[in-house]
C-alpha cells in the first residue's frame, strides 16, 4: 500500500513522454522545410552589376539598391508561380508603395520581354541574369523569391515562393512600415 503514490507517478511517465513527442510533432505540422532561411538577412546586398533586358532601359546593380527601401523580385518567364504573384506587384506599382526591381533569372531576353508585355511590367529596374550566377550570389534556389532591401542597401527580409495577398498584408507591408519608422523588420 505504501508504494501506491510512487506507482501513480510512474504511470504518468508514458503519458508525459507521449505529450512531449506529440508537442514536437504538432510544431512540425507548421514547419516549412522547403523554406531555407537566408544567411544574407541583415547583410549588404551582394556586389553585382547586371545588364538591362535587351531593349529595356535600366539594368540593376548594387548601387541602385542604396538610398531607399525597395523590393527585389526574382522572376522568370518559365516560372509558373511567378504568374500567380505578378498581379500583386502590378498593384504595388500602381499604389507606389516602394520601387520594385526585377531580377530576371536564367531567362532568354525576348521571352522575358514578351512575358512582361503580356502580364504587365511592374519593375523599375530589371537585371538580366542569363547564367544565374548573380542569383547564386543572392542565395536564390527557387523562383520566385522576393527580397526586401532597406535604405542602406541591406537585405531585411526574404520571401520564398510566390507573394500572395496574405504575405503582403501580414509580412512585407508591416516590414516596410517598420523600416520606414527606422526600426527592425520582423519577418
Amino acid at each position: 500500500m505504501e508504494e501506491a503514490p510512487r506507482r501513480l507517478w510512474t504511470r504518468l511517465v508514458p503519458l508525459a513522454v507521449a505529450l512531449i513527442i506529440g508537442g514536437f510533432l504538432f510544431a512540425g505540422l507548421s514547419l516549412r522545410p522547403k523554406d531555407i532561411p537566408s544567411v544574407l538577412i541583415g547583410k549588404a546586398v551582394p556586389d553585382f552589376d547586371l545588364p538591362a533586358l535587351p531593349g529595356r532601359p535600366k539594368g540593376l546593380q548594387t548601387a541602385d539598391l542604396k538610398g531607399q527601401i525597395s523590393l527585389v523580385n526574382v522572376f522568370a518567364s518559365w516560372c509558373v508561380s511567378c504568374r500567380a504573384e505578378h498581379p500583386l506587384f502590378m498593384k504595388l506599382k500602381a499604389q507606389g508603395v516602394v520601387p520594385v526591381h526585377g531580377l530576371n533569372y536564367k531567362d532568354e531576353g525576348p521571352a522575358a520581354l514578351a512575358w512582361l508585355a503580356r502580364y504587365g511590367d511592374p519593375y523599375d529596374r530589371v537585371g538580366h541574369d542569363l547564367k544565374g550566377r548573380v542569383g547564386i550570389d543572392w542565395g536564390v534556389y527557387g523562383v520566385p523569391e522576393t527580397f526586401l532591401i532597406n535604405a542602406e542597401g541591406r537585405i531585411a527580409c526574404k520571401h520564398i515562393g510566390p507573394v500572395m495577398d496574405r504575405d503582403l498584408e501580414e509580412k512585407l507591408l508591416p516590414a516596410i512600415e517598420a523600416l520606414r519608422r527606422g526600426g527592425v523588420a520582423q519577418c
Partner: protein
Amino acid sequence: MLMAVLRSLLLALCLLGSVAPAWSIAVDTPLDDPVLEARARAIHKQLRCLVCQNQSIEDSNATLARDLRVLVRERITAGDSDDAALSFIVDRYGDWVLLQPPVKSGTMVLWLGPALFLILAIVSIAVWYRRRPSPVVAATTPLSADEQARLKALLGDGDPV
C-alpha cells in the same frame, strides 16, 4: 492519318524524355586535371541540393545543382582550397547546404543529443533494476516454526496424519 501523326508525335515525346537526362550530363564537363576533378567531386558530395533536398549536388539533376557543380569546379581551378570552395557556397546558402552539419554551439544538441539519450536510457534501466523488489530475497526469508510444521505435514515427512 491523324492517329498515325499523333502516334509518331507521342513516340517522339517519349524519346525526348529518355534523352533529357543525358543532355544534362553532357553539359557537365569534368575538369581536364584528374586531381582537381577528384577534389571538385569530393566537394560536390558534401553539398546538399537545394531543390531536391535529400540529394547531394553530385547526385541531382536539378539545374541549380549543375550550376553549383560548375561553380565549385571554377573555384577549384581558380586555386581555392577545398575549405574555401565550400565556404564560398556556405556564404550564400548557409550551413544548410552542408550534408554534414558543422559542430558549433547551435548544433550541439544535434551532435550530443543521441549520446545523452543513450546515457539517460542506461541510467534509467540501472535504476529500475536496482529498485525492483528481488524475488530471491523473498524466497530466502526463513520460515517460521508454524510454517515449517505445516510444510512438514504437507510433504508427508514422518508419520502419516
